[in-house]
């Protein structure tokens, strides 16, 4: 079974530029998560989708971050404009459904460096 795919793996941009990350979850997984992992910290949930609807975006900085999951499959996370403090690894994860007992499967992440 193919895992969660993410691209690009690495991205370097200047502050105030825009950037987008792409995630393809495991086939059949209804729930998709985007996490931000700052160096030395654990992953922090940014947004959770159930199919193509948003379940939780309480920690998403909506003035600069946006995410969508059209057709309930692939997802894109965008930052516009980027700030220095956005430098982090952005992890995408998916699970069969939004149940606490379901395992989340993580992609390899996109490492963003903002200069």
């Amino acid at each position: 079974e193919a895992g969660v795919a993410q691209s690009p793996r690495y991205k370097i941009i200047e502050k105030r530029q825009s950037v987008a990350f792409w995630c393809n979850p495991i086939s059949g997984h209804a729930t998709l998560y985007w996490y931000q992992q700052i160096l030395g910290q654990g992953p922090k949930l940014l947004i959770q989708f159930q199919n193509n609807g948003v379940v939780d975006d309480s920690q998403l900085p909506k003035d600069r971050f946006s995410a969508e999951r059209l057709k309930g499959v692939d997802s894109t996370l965008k930052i516009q404009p980027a700030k220095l403090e956005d430098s982090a690894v952005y992890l995408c994860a998916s699970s069969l459904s939004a149940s606490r007992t379901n395992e989340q499967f993580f992609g390899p992440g996109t490492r963003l460096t903002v200069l």
Partner: protein
Amino acid sequence: AQSVTQLDSQVPVFEEAPVELRCNYSSSVSVYLFWYVQYPNQGLQLLLKYLSGSTLVKGINGFEAEFNKSQTSFHLRKPSVHISDTAEYFCAVSALDTNAGKSTFGDGTTLTVKP
């Protein structure tokens, strides 16, 4: 709200020695508990989870963890570590009063196994 504290940021051990990675949590309601492992440049992988039942949980790669409700702890143990166990380990909690599927992660413990 729930929180997770991983008591050691770095744990160096010699190969074939036992290891314990400590995790305490805080929550006013019942929780599910998880340990994930993250190898360099990879996403997180579930090691084990406690949902209910026996407080001693066995996971992959010879790891086990014990849920202690009175001490609000979920420490991870392995009787004999290998070089390949060198990685970052994250403890996570999912409280039963929050959005289903949402987990709060600790800041991680770096396990370094030396020959």
